[in-house]
């Protein structure tokens, strides 16, 4: 280079340069300068950065874990009212044989989207047992091992029979808590005892527990295979209980069930019972919770956006002289506009990166807590949405200050003290 190299310029040349505009290299340089500027003045952006990062992390965790949270919430709330359990049954019809659920029908229902589990029961309402010369009457239920899961039952004492017991047709039984007290004097005393029910002997392996166990406190439960093989007069599985994954699935599943049943067997007397009122209450509660959470996230993000807007306005004012200087050096209005816009974008995007990291940590923590794993695709989707939102926020909040900076008159900027 030689300082003082002779130059001549024409208006046409000026126009040509103007039309050529800023190439990729110029944008790259402006981004570089903007990032450098933000990095060197990072302290002033910490508050805004934290606000957006927290909002973003909350957004990612809620969206990614939302379904798992809902399932978990659903389980907890369901204990109170069974809002997501649909009872499907065949009612007796005059002169017609009462229908019962075939295995293929149950398998087809289990495949309906939104169905978490399905179980059937066989019932004998007048079973009896004797204990130390005393006679006790009760309802005898033959059920699958997943019956406990569908109704969120647990063992108050001992254990509940499992799939292995069902498969083997084991001669074991689970006794309702009140009945156990009546027969054995206490709940624990019955564990390991042998009960004679309708001339067959069964070992008591557990006492039924759980929030809704009170409804079945006078029942005795046998593995359904055992009940079918040994209990005289046990009913066919006329009734089935379908557990939905979330309450949002109840409507669609309840609508789909009749069609599925009809496609697999005679559906005479089919009735679908849904606990609509508890379901609506649960949905209403969760709707308010969701509204509150999303409002908080949006408020945090908007506050972050206002923070950026405010900081950018202050930055433009405090750097008025610098803007004038840059214009004196030949910066176009668009150069100034892009520089400030890139600075705002740099703040929001780096905030969202922190938000994504925080969100990931939150997801890992909640996954462990809930014992479930959300799909990675959903996380990636949230990540992209978060970055997109950050970009919109950056442009939205940074645009006006950037336009103001770019339209500044050089003479005013240079005179600014």
């Amino acid at each position, binding site marked *: 280079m030689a300082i*003082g190299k002779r130059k001549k310029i024409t208006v046409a040349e000026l126009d040509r340069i103007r039309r050529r505009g800023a190439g990729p290299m110029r944008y790259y*340089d402006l981004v570089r300068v903007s990032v450098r500027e933000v990095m060197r003045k990072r302290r002033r952006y910490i508050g805004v950065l934290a606000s957006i990062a927290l909002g973003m992390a909350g957004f990612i965790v809620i969206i990614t874990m939302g379904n798992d949270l809902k399932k978990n919430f659903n389980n907890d709330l369901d204990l109170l009212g069974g809002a997501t359990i649909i009872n499907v049954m065949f009612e007796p019809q005059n002169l017609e044989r009462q229908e019962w659920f075939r295995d293929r029908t149950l398998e087809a229902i289990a495949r309906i989207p939104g169905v978490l589990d399905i179980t059937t029961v066989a019932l004998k309402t007048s079973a009896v047992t004797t204990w130390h010369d005393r006679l006790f009457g009760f309802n005898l239920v033959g059920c699958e091992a997943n019956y406990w899961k569908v109704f969120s039952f647990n063992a108050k004492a001992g254990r509940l029979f499992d799939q292995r017991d069902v498969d083997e047709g084991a001669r074991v039984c689970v006794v309702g808590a009140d009945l156990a007290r009546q027969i054995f004097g206490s709940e624990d005393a019955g564990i390991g005892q042998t009960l004679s029910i309708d001339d067959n002997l069964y070992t008591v392996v557990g006492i039924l527990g759980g929030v809704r166990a009170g409804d079945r406190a006078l029942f005795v439960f046998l593995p359904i295979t055992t009940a079918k093989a040994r209990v005289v007069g046990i009913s066919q599985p006329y009734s089935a209980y379908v557990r939905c994954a979330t309450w949002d699935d109840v409507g669609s599943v309840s609508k789909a069930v009749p069609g599925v049943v009809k496609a697999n067997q005679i559906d005479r007397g089919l009735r679908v019972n849904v606990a609509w009122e508890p379901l609506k209450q649960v949905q209403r509660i969760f709707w308010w919770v969701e509204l509150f959470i999303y409002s908080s996230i949006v408020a945090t993000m908007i506050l972050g956006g206002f923070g950026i807007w405010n900081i950018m306005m202050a930055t433009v004012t405090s750097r008025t002289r610098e803007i004038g200087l840059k214009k004196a050096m*030949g910066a176009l209005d668009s150069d100034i506009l892009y520089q400030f816009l890139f600075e705002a974008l740099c703040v929001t995007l780096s905030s969202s990166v922190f938000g994504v990291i925080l969100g990931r940590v939150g997801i890992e923590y909640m996954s462990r807590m809930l014992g479930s794993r959300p799909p990675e695709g959903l996380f990636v989707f949230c990540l992209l949405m978060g970055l997109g939102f950050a970009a919109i926020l950056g442009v939205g909040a940074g645009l006006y200050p950037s336009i103001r900076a770019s339209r500044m008159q050089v003479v005013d900027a240079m005179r600014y003290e």
Partner: protein
Amino acid sequence: MSNRYDINDDNALVIDINHLTKNYVTAAGQITVLKDVNLHVRRGEMVAVMGPSGSGKSTLLFVLGLFQPPSTGDYQVAGVDVLSLNRDQQAIFRREMLGFVFQTCDLLENSTVYENLELPLIYAGVPRRERPDRIREALRMVNLDHRVHQPSNRLSGGERQRVSIARALVNEPEFILADEPTGQLDRENSLRVLEYFTKITEEARTAMVVVTHDGMTAEHCTRKCVLTDGYLNG
């Protein structure tokens, strides 16, 4: 549009101002700050514009730098009628043809010497690989090439002004405009800066207008003009 400016002529007319006036409208009425100003500066000339406070020096400087338009008159730089240019064309013209040295140096905060000199090159679209050489060359003109990566806030006042000069030179301007360039410097540093100005105008044949009220600065110029009550004499 044709341009008769001859780049091979060592004495070509770079600045050509004729009958230029500048009025301001204030609450008290219209004030004429520059009155029928004529200024002609050729290549290699260093012209001092002197005058007391309020005489219109700053206004003339802003008009010369294309920061604000005059009310009437003609103004050509290197053969181009700069008053007919639009906002973007003026900005491009400024970065291609003009260099500025300000009294307060105005180096960018929290930046190195290199970054200060790189900015005009970014705006001019100079490829990245060419920038280091051009920056070093400009710094060499003011004997600061050893300070290229020094943070600007660690420079002395004299060094800052020299960086400011190098920044004005880095885009190879035809015309340098200096506003009180020695206003905040001690005598020794002032003399050094003026020597660089002389070197630039003599070696590079760049035209220069120095707005000053300092007699010593004016003595180093090839010509001296005095602005009094809006009239430019000399």
